[in-house]
């Protein structure tokens, strides 16, 4: 048996998260779910601090709101909305799957194999369509109807 120090370490590392081969769609949904989660978390931590100004005085509130207005911030908030739409709907899909409901029952494997990935594919499609509808509605509200 070769001593462990002589063997060459061969983990994919972060490249295994981002994609290193011909992966399926669900793998990219996983990566996107992580990215949107991190983005939402970063926004949320700042959001707590910014909106706490409503406990101090209306002047502080208005100046805080003024500092986060403008076209750049509007686009940024829309991106947060998009991230939420995806993360929430995909999160519902993941909760259903990871509690064992969307994956199908154990079956005798007969080639070509129909795995849980195939069984949950319709759920994933429905989830993405729903998220898409929300993104469009949000876009409408943000940029057409003049909502901030």
């Amino acid at each position, binding site marked *: 048996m070769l001593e462990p120090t002589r063997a060459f370490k061969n983990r994919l590392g*972060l490249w295994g998260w981002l994609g290193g081969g011909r992966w399926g769609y669900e793998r990219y949904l996983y990566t996107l779910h*992580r990215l949107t*989660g*991190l983005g*939402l*978390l970063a926004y*949320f*931590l700042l959001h*707590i601090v910014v*909106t*706490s100004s*409503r*406990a*101090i*005085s*209306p002047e502080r*509130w*208005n100046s805080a*709101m003024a500092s986060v207005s403008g076209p750049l911030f509007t686009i940024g*908030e829309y991106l947060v*909305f998009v991230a*939420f739409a995806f993360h*929430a709907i995909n*999160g*519902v899909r993941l*909760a259903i799957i*990871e*509690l064992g409901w969307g994956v199908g029952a154990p079956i005798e494997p007969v080639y070509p194999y129909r795995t849980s990935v195939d069984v949950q594919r319709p759920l994933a499609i429905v989830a993405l369509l729903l998220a898409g509808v929300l993104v469009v*509605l*949000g876009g*409408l*509200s*943000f940029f057409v*109807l*003049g*909502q*901030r």
Partner: protein
Amino acid sequence: MRDQKLWTWHIAAGAVILVLLGMHMTVMHLDRLVHFAGLNPAGGHPVDWANVVERGKSAAFMVTYVLLLGAALFHGLYGLRNILLELNPPGILKKAIGAVLLIAGLGLFAFGTWAAVAGHALARTF
């Protein structure tokens, strides 16, 4: 043992956030499309002081804000903890990550609860 419990709460918190943050997003960003009576009563933008005051007066709102704050902080920081631990840091760093995230979470929860309660009290004076 611990991950079995924390993960269950993570999913539960996600369900709570789905409802409460969904409402928050609707009130804040979809108001022109879906107008909840009484949630943006002063017209204009949802972040105008008048609207903030109207929502702030409601004790129910304060409670839901605190609930959302707690659920979102737990859900987000537990997710961040998972991502950081999966990157396989050395042993001491693992404990440090857990401790830092816990302290940050509790601190932000305390701060946010104060802001919600004080905001409610301030709104009542308007």
